[in-house]
């Protein structure tokens, strides 16, 4: 049997997982240098029932915008988990090499509606300037530039409905 293994990032901590063996629901997994023998069954949409020895764990997954990002809840705690395979590593490295202290893409972690854009392409802005206001569920949030720079691109219009983490304004 070929080994199956790849990395995960959980709340920014990197993990390496390897599937050592499996037989039906019973799996043997190496997580970093810890071995787990689990009985794991998918019981509902995104819901896994896990037995570690006799101990019961219930894990709920929901896929986020792409297939590699998960919002996981376990014991009513939340974990942001991302699969880091070759493709993801490539993209991340590329993003990091693109990124740096002299650029800033503004986004809102919550989906919502663009209430107001207080800047225009070509404007010079200072770190801390409010550039865009997003509203969701009767709550408004202001998003500010993290750097001094020039507004290079605005990806949305006022009154647009936006997804969480979608790029809104690019400052360089």
């Amino acid at each position, binding site marked *: 049997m070929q*080994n199956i293994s790849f990395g995960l990032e959980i709340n920014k901590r990197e993990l390496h997982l390897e599937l050592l063996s499996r*037989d039906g629901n019973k799996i043997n*997994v190496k*997580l970093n240098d810890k071995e787990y023998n689990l009985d794991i069954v998918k019981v509902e949409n995104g*819901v*896994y029932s896990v037995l570690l020895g006799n101990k019961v764990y219930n894990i709920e997954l929901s896929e986020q915008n792409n297939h590699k990002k998960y919002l996981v809840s376990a014991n009513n705690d939340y974990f942001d988990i991302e699969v880091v395979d070759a493709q993801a590593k490539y993209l991340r490295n590329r993003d990091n090499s693109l990124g740096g202290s002299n650029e800033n893409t503004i986004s809102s972690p919550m989906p*919502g509606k663009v209430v107001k854009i207080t800047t225009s392409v070509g404007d010079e802005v200072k770190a801390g300037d409010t550039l865009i206001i997003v509203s969701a569920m009767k709550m408004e949030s202001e998003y500010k530039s993290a750097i001094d720079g020039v507004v290079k691109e605005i990806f949305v219009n006022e009154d647009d409905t936006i997804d969480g983490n979608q790029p809104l304004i690019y400052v360089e």
Partner: protein
Amino acid sequence: MIKKILIANRGEIAVRVIRSCREMGIKSVAVFSEADRNSIHVRFADEAIFIGPSPSNESYLVIDKIIDAAKKTEADAIHPGYGFLSENAEFSDRCKKEGIIFIGPTSDVIKVMGDKISARNEMINSGVPVVPGTKENLESDEKALEVIKEIGLPVMIKASAGGGGKGMRLVKNEEDIIDSIRAAKSEAMASFNDDAVYIEKYVSSPHHIEFQVLGDSYGNVIHLGERECSVQRRHQKVVEESPSPLLTPELREEMGQKAVAAAKAVNYEGAGTIEFLVDDDLNFYFLEMNTRLQVEHPITESVIGIDLVQEQIRIASGLKLSRKQDDIQQRGHAIECRVYAEDADNNFMPSPGLIHQMTEPFGQSIRVDGYVYSGYDIPLHYDPMISKLIVWGVDRQEAMNRMKRALYEYKITGVKTSIRFLTRILETPDFVNGKYDTHFIEKNKDFLMNVEDRDETYEDIAAIAVFIDYINKLEKAGGEGLQRIGSKNWKNFGKKKGVLRW
């Protein structure tokens, strides 16, 4: 008796009202905006009618559209729920003019109780204690300084038309008085087009305790005991309980009598709530009256054994109250937790979006008043509260135990919710001991937000579940993905005769 009721609301409260209508054999009419075609209140009602675009000021808040819908569906009454048009005097009036029963008080009562200065004056005249302060708008700086000297610092300056903390200033030092009054007045003018402000003594660390009252059109008024609502975040109630751990039987009796007096002062008809501030020495003061159903009304229903919406409808139909004060008895203990779609770890940012899967708690003495379901996309446009979890227990301890069990069973995926935050509140020693006031959340912030006592095994198992889920996904996608990770025995993984393919 009323035959058909239009519910001028959405979300859990619309569903809740529809349920009582169905139980009473009264037809219900739902109204819905564009965002709400697949909301559950549309499915549960007998009839449903479209009233416009998603933003509430183009649908749920438009009086003409609501009245139109009621006429088209021949509803003989309108239940406003809470929020939206529920405390809108003009709406109450308009219903009356159109010959539709408004299930709530008359516009006069809404107006008197909606204006804080006039409400204070009504209470003072009826012998209901109010926070020491002024009875009228502060016309001059001199008057203000004189009054404040009499009351003593610290004081609150409040807008008469106020709400939501706007036009409100806490003054601790004498030198800040004049500036604060000006700032409050200008904010009040900007927010409410009315710069009237008044002064109240600042009650530090108050308890927020409210009494439910019912009044009929024959002048009968009773109270149904209290609700303790001191667990608040940004003036927003989060957890409520009844009875209050603070009250003694004597104080309950006394406050109940004052609540009845307050309602009688305005000839109150229907269900209403008298909110009091109570200080640590058990002095209590009238804060305001809510002339509608409260979000937290179910804890009263649990402890008293009554359906408040049915009572509202009976009163609006012109029936007499079916119970006297002596028939009312608190039994056991009830707690309510409000579940929000929000990210408690991230400054309580709203978290609208698609619910992938939901498991709600069941079992003895548990009630969930909610409106979302697996596959429902929580709209951006409305309140982030998705449900209220209410439990009853023989005593406070049993109620707390049951609430923790219910929160444990409650699973919502896809959006973040406040369930963990609520669980932490139930575990906070000050809450467990029943020793808390409105500063509870601020005071216990570190405990509430602490994540260090998390069980690390959960984190590992969460990672493994994702690992397996992702492998399954690659396997399902077939071809490339499958080859990349190799394959042995995968075909049957997670498959089981009859299990639905997700």
